[in-house]
């Protein structure tokens, strides 16, 4: 069963930006697109573990600040020809509030 957790107001995340949510299983990066969609990914690039939350967000992608891997926010997949995948977590916005559901892997350490 999906357990939704309230993590803050949408306004607290900059458009085309990201904020970090600390969990016992590691940091999760919560991204906000230009059209106010939110996505949540483990804050680790599949390449060399760079903090994706610190990257530049464009459309529904983020570029890792360490070596410019580009990651799809919806799937966590690296954009070809790069390879790799980051865990995603369900996230949604309701009435200006952001909700996150931790996937098993990160919730149970």
């Amino acid at each position, binding site marked *: 069963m999906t*357990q939704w*957790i309230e*993590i803050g107001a949408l306004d607290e*995340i*900059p458009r*085309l930006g990201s904020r970090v949510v*600390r969990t016992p299983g590691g940091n999760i990066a919560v991204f906000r697109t230009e059209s106010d969609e939110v996505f949540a990914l483990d804050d680790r690039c599949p390449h060399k573990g760079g903090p994706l939350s610190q990257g530049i967000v*464009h*459309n529904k992608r983020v570029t890792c600040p360490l070596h410019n891997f580009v990651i799809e926010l919806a799937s966590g997949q690296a954009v070809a020809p790069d390879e790799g995948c980051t865990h995603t977590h369900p996230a949604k916005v309701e009435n200006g509030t952001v909700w996150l559901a*931790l996937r098993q892997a990160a919730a149970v350490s």
Partner: protein
Amino acid sequence: MLDKVIKQKLVVIGNGMAGIRTVEALLERAPDLYDITVFGSEPYGNYNRILLSPVLAGEKTVDDIMLNTVEWYEDNNITLRKGETITMIDRRTCEVVTEAGDRVPYDRLLIATGSNPIMLPLPGKDLPGVIGFRDIHDVDRMIKASTDYRNAVVIGGGLLGLEAANGLMKRGMNVTVVHLLDTLMERQLDPVAGGLLRKSLEERGMVFKMPAQTQAILGEDRVTGVRFGDGTELAADLVVMAVGIRPNFELAKKAGLHCERGIVVSDTMQTYDGRIYAVGECVQHRRQVYGLVAPLFEQAKVCANHLAMKGFATYDGSVTSTKLKVTGIDLFSAGDFAPGPDKEEIVLQDANRGVYKRIILKDKKIVGAVLYGDTIDGPWYFQHLRDGTDVSHMRERLVFGAANLGDGGVSGQNSVAAMSDETEICGCNGVCKGAIVKAISEKKLFTLDDVRAHTKASSSCGSCTGLVEQVLAFTLGGDYSAAPKVKPLCKCTDHSHDDVRRVIVEQQLKTIPAVMRFMEWKTLNGCHSCRPALNYYLLATWPGEYRDDQQSRFINERVHANIQKDGTYSVVPRMWGGVTTPRELRAIADVAEKFNIPTVKVTGGQRVDLLGVKKEDLPAVWADLNDAGMVSGHAYAKGLRTVKTCVGSEWCRFGTQDSTGLGIKLEKFMWGSWTPAKVKLAVSGCPRNCAEATCKDVGVVCVDSGYEIHFAGAAGLHIKGTEFLTKVESEDEALEVIVALTQLYREEGWYLERMYKWCDRVGLEQIRKRVVDDVKNRKALFERFAYSQQFSQSDPWAERASRGVDRNEFAPLAELELA
């Protein structure tokens, strides 16, 4: 309700490189716009025609050179009708007609019928054993002949002829090359290089008969020999005619389209009938016809852009370069090298090493180059040729190549052909030659961008770009698609940096979305390359007016610290001119202990670096440093970094001026300014130059009578000594010149283009004219810099440490306990 939009129909005649490259580019831009049907006479998929020579020579197989498999057409919903020839274009009904009489309608038509080999109208030309050299079928016939027969004659000593001759020789035949003129490859080579080439081919066993005119091909049931104009005869079991190619435009001509030497097309690759496009070897553009692959790729891009209804790209013609695809012979030729009264030549000839280089200059620019034996600098000369660089400042060393100008990358490597597969080409990403070669052949890569995307080579610092281009040229056998002459800012647009800067000013564009809308960006929010560039251009163009977009800043500039591999940051406080005090040092020591900062290191720019600071600690670290009077050192910025100084006349027994004082003055005036790329300064108190000023972006060397101002140096990726700009008598003048110079760079430099690259591009004389000679202009530049400084000289650390700017940036959004 219609659930499917009826698409327009695009018919492509010709399943070769030009046609398919256009289709590929079109699919990239507008994947769903057309129903596409491709007709090809040959019974194969699309293959790489330029690699037929290595197939003939047995160095590659037919499978190696296939570019698009049948599955590729299926995957992209393209109807491929191979083995079907189009015999008529009916422009009235907008249909093409196949050999079998099938009529296929089109909304847009693309003609890419390529070219045919020229078959000389000689007696006996239709005898079995006489062939052209154009397609896989020809190669098959040559390979078969080489197992059954001994003697081959190749008519034509051009690129194609020599490659055919080399291939047949490798397959064990005795080969004689017959050439009408006394210089081989006369269109690409001058007589000296042609002579060197002949000599080395002769050493490999090739025989030449030249100058000689073929008069008849002899034989009854099959070719037995060739007779020449002087009456002599030569026995032959195989005759290959490789005297040239002729654009194949019969079909277009029959349809009433205007043709001269090829199908005449406009700058958007349209024929006189706007619904019909043409690309590749069958076209004539601005009176030129091309028989090489690079122009064809450039045409394909423009054509696809127009078919996709983007419609702003135009094709302005190509400058081409050639390499002979004969393994072991290094030969490069580009541009125009016919002698002329207004041209100058630089020639280097070393007979023992078998090296010959000839560079042709006109109006201070390279217009042609012929290299033999040592072609490592071919791409480098070619780049300058295409860019139209003013090379006068490097003229005396030009002929020795990039390495001797300090432009050859970190290790100044030699020819890639001689490197082993394990040799590391890209030091940043650890990519060796073998991996690049493998990716190029297995993944069918053609361009530098392809190689960057697939291997990461040359995608970081870029210093190995020349080497990667060489590997491309070497693996593809030359003639690969060089980077376009005008580089787009990034993949999100076809516009260049210059275009973008100009339009921002002309159209008074003041936000990133406004620029993207006006210039028809291809992506929604751009990408990590273009957004920071646009942010800088807007900031530099509209000081005080443009609101800096934090989300378009690379993380270092957003959080005013340098990100490290583990996600922590490094902090470098400013030390004006490299001078510090016990109080500052004590504060640094206290901060390091208080926040458990693991590493404290002295930098090359005379500063102290605190490494391993957690992001959430940054504001508190800055607050403590601020309390001791220190501000951000901008060690993360594309902006003024450090001014390095020596102690000068204040202490040094050799010092001629107060170099430390001038350094501090410069730094206090210029700190906080954003520039296209980082800017490092240095001031030395005497010509002993202890501050190493002559490898900085701007360096001052004090002398007894004043201040020498140097600029455009580098000591990182490239080692490059500075250029002398001017000498002035007072500190104030020095400040004015340096500030004006920096402002000109701010206004004209491309984002991430260091000052020495900018100088290379626009020319030293141009810069000197506007910064030194034109005093009024210098003062105006100085004023514009001073104006913009009033908006940028606010310590970003203090803003964040005590004034709450970007508070959200440094704290997590939430902390979740284990449920």
